[in-house]
């Protein structure tokens, strides 16, 4: 999978609507934002564009200009995307743990200095 750090992949895949969008794009091969919005029951066009931007920044979706259209395709196989999701989910939890422990250690240092 190209581009996209684990945090961006995590945030992108954490949203169920974005996961559905990814599946639809994968099944279509290539799709325009307008066609995609028609396939997404109950999700507005603006919201679909926002979701596409997040997926693109995470490196999960490619954008190709074709005349006045932009066409979207996926960058990885669905199985690779699931693996990327799981990897990012567990890594994310450990990064949070590390910051919590470091914050606590800093707090102890501060108290030691002031005491």
């Amino acid at each position, binding site marked *: 999978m190209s581009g996209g750090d684990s945090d961006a992949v995590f945030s992108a895949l954490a949203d169920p609507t974005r996961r559905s969008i990814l599946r639809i794009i994968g099944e279509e091969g290539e799709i325009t934002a307008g066609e995609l919005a028609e396939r*997404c029951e109950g999700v507005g066009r603006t919201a679909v564009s926002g979701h596409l931007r997040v997926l693109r920044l995470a490196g999960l979706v490619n954008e190709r200009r074709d005349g006045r259209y932009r066409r979207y395709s996926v960058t990885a196989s669905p199985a690779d995307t699931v693996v990327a999701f*799981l990897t990012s989910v567990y*890594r994310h939890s450990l990064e*949070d743990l590390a910051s919590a422990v470091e914050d606590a250690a800093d707090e102890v240092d501060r108290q030691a200095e002031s005491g």
Partner: protein
Amino acid sequence: MGELVLNSEVHLPASPGEVFSQFGSGDPAAGWLFGAETSSVQAGSLIRLTIPLAGLTGMEGTARILATTPFRRIDLVHESPWSGHVSCRFRPDPDGGTRVAVRVRIADHEIERLGVELGLVSPTRVDGSIALGLLTSMSGTAGILGRSTVNCAELAVDEINGNGGVLGRPVQLIVADDATDAVVGRMAMCRLLATPHLSAVLGMHSSDTFAAVAPLAVSAATPYLYTPTSETRSNHPLVVRFGETPIDQLHRALPRLAEETGGRRWFFTGNDYSWPRAIGGTARAIVRQMGGTLAGEGYLPVGARRFDELIESIHRSGTDHVVASFIGHDQVRFERAFGSSGLRSTTRTFAPLLDDALVEHQGADAARIWNVLGYFEGLDSETNRSFLARYRQRFGVCAPPVSAAAEGVYEVVHRWAMACHRSRGWDATAVLDGLRRTRFDGPRLRRGTGEPTLLLGEAQAGGVRVLEDVPIAS
């Protein structure tokens, strides 16, 4: 069969003891894995976890501790929203810090299933199979019941396929997650309805999602079988609701509870959508009929985190009884806040979604809460013992308890197969007609009468104790 192995390691400036003690704290700042909530870090303990997501509710899931060695190691099995083994090891570093190594093992078939459940992949079809859809909540507030629901559907499908399938074809279960959200539910339902060779869709989710997806099933001319508790049993020809209605659940239980307490005052609360409000409406009518009074009423949105104002107004109302219609994790959080406020000693609770799975999550917070449903694990019958033995044999001792909603799905899958055989084909109208006439010899048919009844249950340590039978009112 292969498996995916993920390894991550972090170095932390704290001793193994300090890092170990972060586990199970319930503090989300420590990460969803270590900051999960558990009553005690020991083998067998249940863990509730919230994976932080965009949106309000987070992806809620459950895990269980398999084994632990203090300050050295914790082994877990995650059961929802996906299943896998997680091993966390703590090694002291010469600099006084700790290396935490997390190793996650997830079976290949689970990766495919997870892809399908997460909505990332369409499932690979079994040759010649007929598809049966299941729309349920594997994540979000109601995700607490997801794993046992999928387990029960799989158990029924395995039993049907073990007997030669339906009309000679294997049945393939296709699961979709509504994430306890009606918009996600609509997209998931659209995907299910596009499945080739689809016979019917089972729904086990909130009535919010029901209202959003039922019209989609109707316009696709696909039978939609809604199994959990619901406002009414009135049906569209293509939509069958099997679950307990508010009048079924309340007509006998509320007067019985008032008899026990000698109190007259009632407070109604729950999540703010149609079903809890329907429970409130029916409860109000019953209370009026028995000469009781309404002490107060208050509802909170799905995924609510703060219950203190609500608890305060219950306290001020001086009520003798509370009817609490929260779903999944919200019910657990409400009962915890209620328990720690001390109200439990003066106020009895009826909770129309309480079942064995929720009692396991609530522990002592659930003590003496009542409910009426068609099934509790403690039901004393040969059929039920044999059903539970098959469930444990198939999914292991660590599998979550069978919730009433999950057992309902098990029975409806079998009734659907019987109806297909009876109508000798897949025609939706004929299958639905057959479904309404079938009786499945499962745990809900009791005591040789052949008639389904409901059960009044009381929460206690380890599950729900069955107190007595309750006739169906509607």
